[in-house]
């Protein structure tokens, strides 16, 4: 079966994943929702294969849990995790029936292509995969469609920047920083302070208490005669704050979906009007 110029090299590494990518590519203009559905399935298949090697007890977990686990075990880099999460999120929207502009699907297809080379190298260690530049399937000549794609691409660019910013805010280090260098400087400084503190006889925290808290069941901790009530209160406040933050993130994603929906619906209407004008 012929697949595509972008993904046919995958035949030698993971036929099922390659086939899903090829199908997604074929749908990118004609049916963007199906394209995203196939890409989501592709990412899920990739994640399951990788998780079987790394954490088999999570093989039946949902995609988001599998990706988080792969990211924490550093199999996925930050960039790969971002690409896979973007496909997961947009694939979910498509599955739930949100109209999707073609440029959204195209952008995720491009992400899938970036992931494919890395994936093949990961599943077949030592494989020399030379990833060719991504070639978008041929574009439509229709000027109106071109304008629509331009708008869609601008929207995708803006969404990507906003997601990137959200992610940057959450990380301990920014992409521009040299983490190893910072870590080693901080540890050296801390060692210096430690020596000074020992000489000066500075007091230390009660490490045994910390170890006890670490080892205790959370239920027991919440029933603790001295800390139980304040901890329950602290927990309730923190939970409310955490929920508020999660809702903020969800609202942001919902607004992205709405902007895409508006664009896709606008395009559908234009197409319908043009169709009825021709009758």
């Amino acid at each position, binding site marked *: 079966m012929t697949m595509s110029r972008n993904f046919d090299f995958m035949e030698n590494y993971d036929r099922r994943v390659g086939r899903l990518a090829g199908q997604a590519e074929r749908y990118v203009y004609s049916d963007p929702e199906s394209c995203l559905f196939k890409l989501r399935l592709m990412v899920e298949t990739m994640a399951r294969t990788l998780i079987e090697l790394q*954490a088999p*007890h*999570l093989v039946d977990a949902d995609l988001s*849990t599998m990706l*988080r*686990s792969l*990211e*924490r*075990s*550093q199999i996925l880099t930050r960039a790969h995790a971002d690409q896979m999460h973007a496909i997961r999120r947009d694939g979910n929207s498509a599955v739930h029936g949100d109209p999707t502009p073609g440029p959204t699907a195209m952008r995720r297809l491009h992400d899938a292509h970036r992931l494919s080379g890395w994936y093949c190298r990961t599943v077949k260690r030592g494989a020399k995969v030379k990833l060719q530049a991504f070639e978008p399937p041929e574009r439509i000549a229709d000027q109106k469609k071109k304008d629509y794609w331009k708008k869609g691409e601008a929207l995708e660019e803006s969404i990507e920047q906003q997601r990137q*910013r*959200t992610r*940057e*805010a*959450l*990380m*301990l*280090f*920014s992409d*521009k*920083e040299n*983490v190893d260098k*910072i*870590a080693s400087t*901080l*540890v050296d*400084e*801390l*060692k210096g*302070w*430690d020596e000074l*503190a020992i000489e000066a006889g*500075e*007091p*230390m*925290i*009660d*490490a045994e*208490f*910390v*170890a006890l*808290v*670490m080892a*205790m069941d*959370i239920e027991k*901790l*919440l029933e*603790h005669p001295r*800390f139980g009530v*304040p*901890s329950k209160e*602290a*927990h309730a406040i*923190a*939970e409310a*704050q*955490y929920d*508020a*933050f*999660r809702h903020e993130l969800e609202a942001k994603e919902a607004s992205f979906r709405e902007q895409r929906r508006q664009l896709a619906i606008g395009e559908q209407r234009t197409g319908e009007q043009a169709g009825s004008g021709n009758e």
Partner: protein
Amino acid sequence: MPALDWLHSWTMESEALKSQVQLATIWFLAARTMAVADGNLPKVKETVAGLYARSILELPEEACVAAKNPENISSLRIEDCLASVRSLPRALGEKIMTGVMMIAYANRAMHPLEVRWASMLASAIGLEENDFQRCCVDARVIATMMNPSAEDEIS
């Protein structure tokens, strides 16, 4: 909006953002120091710090991004962090301590340098033993809520 009102509101917003960036800078410095003190930097420590900043410290996205700009943070040292923590209102200082202890719990063990950093912070904030213990317990409770899957991975 008249020009003067606009200028006034812009100045207020800009001042508010400035103090948020300062708090974010203190937090990320304190959190980084705890995160690297044992010589490891697992992903779980890396993502939970930002979640804590955004949800518990209620810092806006732009303050968190600005704080980590190398121009802002790269020249700062541990003593800058301690000096800044000293000048924080007590409640905020305790929140920083709680968050830092939450990061220390990530790998279920405390390295001597982690103990030292916690001690230095507690002393800079001026925490009595009871207050510190309360921060420890709160940290454990919040860690369970923010990071439920980390425990699966450790086991």
